[in-house]
């Protein structure tokens, strides 16, 4: 029988503009919180994976994994994982595979990004590195631009409306008001989204996730070992990862993220569940259209009906499948390398019943969905509690 893998501890920093804290302080803060939450000590940790998109361009620092291990005084194997905005989710998957293989028992996963030490235009240029530089970046497209291209086509093919896109942002901001770590815990309205400055039509400023500093960490552990530390085991029941062409124009369809569909299929099959069984999900809403694509591609709603599903309130906290209870990338913030790890932390809090005002009642199965670039990487995890 294969080994079962659990998450036994989570730690998060506040998401936002941390002028007073640097990269290493953020990483260490999240790591220590996760270690304390798990009830382990540093000497219990066998290995570490760190999700980070671009320390090199945001703070001029490479060699991230050893930097953090060194700060923690650990000489353990430490590996940086990079897949643009999916770096965090992919780091979680590497830890999962390492424990599943039997090589390691206790693995610390961190995700960290320090984005506000450069100008916004410089940050935008760094983020375009997740797209195809030679054939997309060359022509002056931005990330909001790439998702705007998908949004326009989705509106054309399925009649998705400008208001439905706005409703995603409104809902995520509403959830963020209940999350103490959120960058923007403020309510907004459909009108304020529609009247916010255009960034890449049809997407406006309030359709876009922000630039954020922040870190997240979790402790991944083999079930047999985990029982020494805690009774509240949250299992990683399924893990999926798929890739696609870096350039958006090379894909057959612009109204789906094929990598999401493939990664989801892998994770659902491994967990032995269907989309309808998921109680709560954190999906990759880097832009409002991205959440609509995600809920369709993850199988929560039929392709093309995502906009209506949002409009009907199905994805709200009190809906049939609450999406992005943390506030999502949109309102909780999007420190790119940390996001995928934060998503796992949020679902673990939900399954343990520790999500405070934003708690989804009796949540037992949760899903995370982390995307890199315009969909060239997708990582899906399914978490489940037994009790």
């Amino acid at each position: 029988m294969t080994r079962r893998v659990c998450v036994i501890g989570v730690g998060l920093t506040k998401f936002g503009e941390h002028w007073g804290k640097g990269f290493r302080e953020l990483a260490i803060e999240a790591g220590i919180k996760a270690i304390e939450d798990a009830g382990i000590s540093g000497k219990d940790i066998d290995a570490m994976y760190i999700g980070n998109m671009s320390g090199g361009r945001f703070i001029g620092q490479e060699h991230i994994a050893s930097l953090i291990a060194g700060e923690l005084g650990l000489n353990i194997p430490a590996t940086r994982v990079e897949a643009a905005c999916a770096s965090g989710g992919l780091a979680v998957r590497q830890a999962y595979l390492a424990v599943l293989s039997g090589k390691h028992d206790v693995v610390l996963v961190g995700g960290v990004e320090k984005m506000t030490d450069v100008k916004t235009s410089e940050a935008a240029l760094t983020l375009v590195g997740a797209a195809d530089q030679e054939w997309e970046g060359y022509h002056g497209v931005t990330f909001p631009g790439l998702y705007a291209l998908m949004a326009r086509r989705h509106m054309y093919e399925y009649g998705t409306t400008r208001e439905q896109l706005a409703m995603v942002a409104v809902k995520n901001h509403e959830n963020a008001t209940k999350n103490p770590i959120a960058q923007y815990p403020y309510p907004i309205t459909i009108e304020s989204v529609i009247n916010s400055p255009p960034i890449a039509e049809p997407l406006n400023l309030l359709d876009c996730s922000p630039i954020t500093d922040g870190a997240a960490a979790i402790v991944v552990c083999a079930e047999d070992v985990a029982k020494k530390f805690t009774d509240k085991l949250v299992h990683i029941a399924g893990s999926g990862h798929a890739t696609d062409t870096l350039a958006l124009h090379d894909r057959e369809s612009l109204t789906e993220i094929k990598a999401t569909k493939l990664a989801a299929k892998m994770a659902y099959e491994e967990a032995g569940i269907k989309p309808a069984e998921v109680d709560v999900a954190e999906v990759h809403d880097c832009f409002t259209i991205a959440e609509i694509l995600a809920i369709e591609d993850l199988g929560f709603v039929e392709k093309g009906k995502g906009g209506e599903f949002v409009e009907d309130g199905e994805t709200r906290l009190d809906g049939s499948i609450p999406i992005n209870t943390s506030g999502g990338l949109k309102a909780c913030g999007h420190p790119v390398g940390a996001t995928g790890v934060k998503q796992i932390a949020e679902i673990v809090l939900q399954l343990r019943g520790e999500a405070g005002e934003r708690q989804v009642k009796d949540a037992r199965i949760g899903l995370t969905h982390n995307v890199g670039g315009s969909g060239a990487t997708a990582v899906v995890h399914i978490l489940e509690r037994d009790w």
Partner: protein
Amino acid sequence: MSHRSSVPLAWRRFEARYRLVGNRCLTCGTIYFPPNAICPKCRRKGKLEKYQLKGEGKIHTYTIIHAAPSGFEKRVPYCIAIIELDEGPKVLGEVVGDLTLLDIGARVRAVFRKIYEDGEDGIIHYGLKWELV
């Protein structure tokens, strides 16, 4: 930025960027633009040769960029689209000309233009844009 000011990096893409030369797999007949290093359908059984595209197609989807990355700030607002070429491949580029004609399905043709300048002393990058017809 360092990668932008590399002369060989720009030079090795001239044929595709200036003249719309893609490639075609002799085994399965698929046409690629931008040119692919391997035919993903046939992989090692594929045999790629250069293929000259005509430079005509229609708009598959488009956006107007208002917040530009470094080097493009002075150009806002500008239109970026994914063009479906008549030969099949899709390609991303800027749309120019009479933007009142802009729509999904609108016809465009390739025109040679300056893309951006890498600062005062850097490379002036040229390439193809797509003019509404």
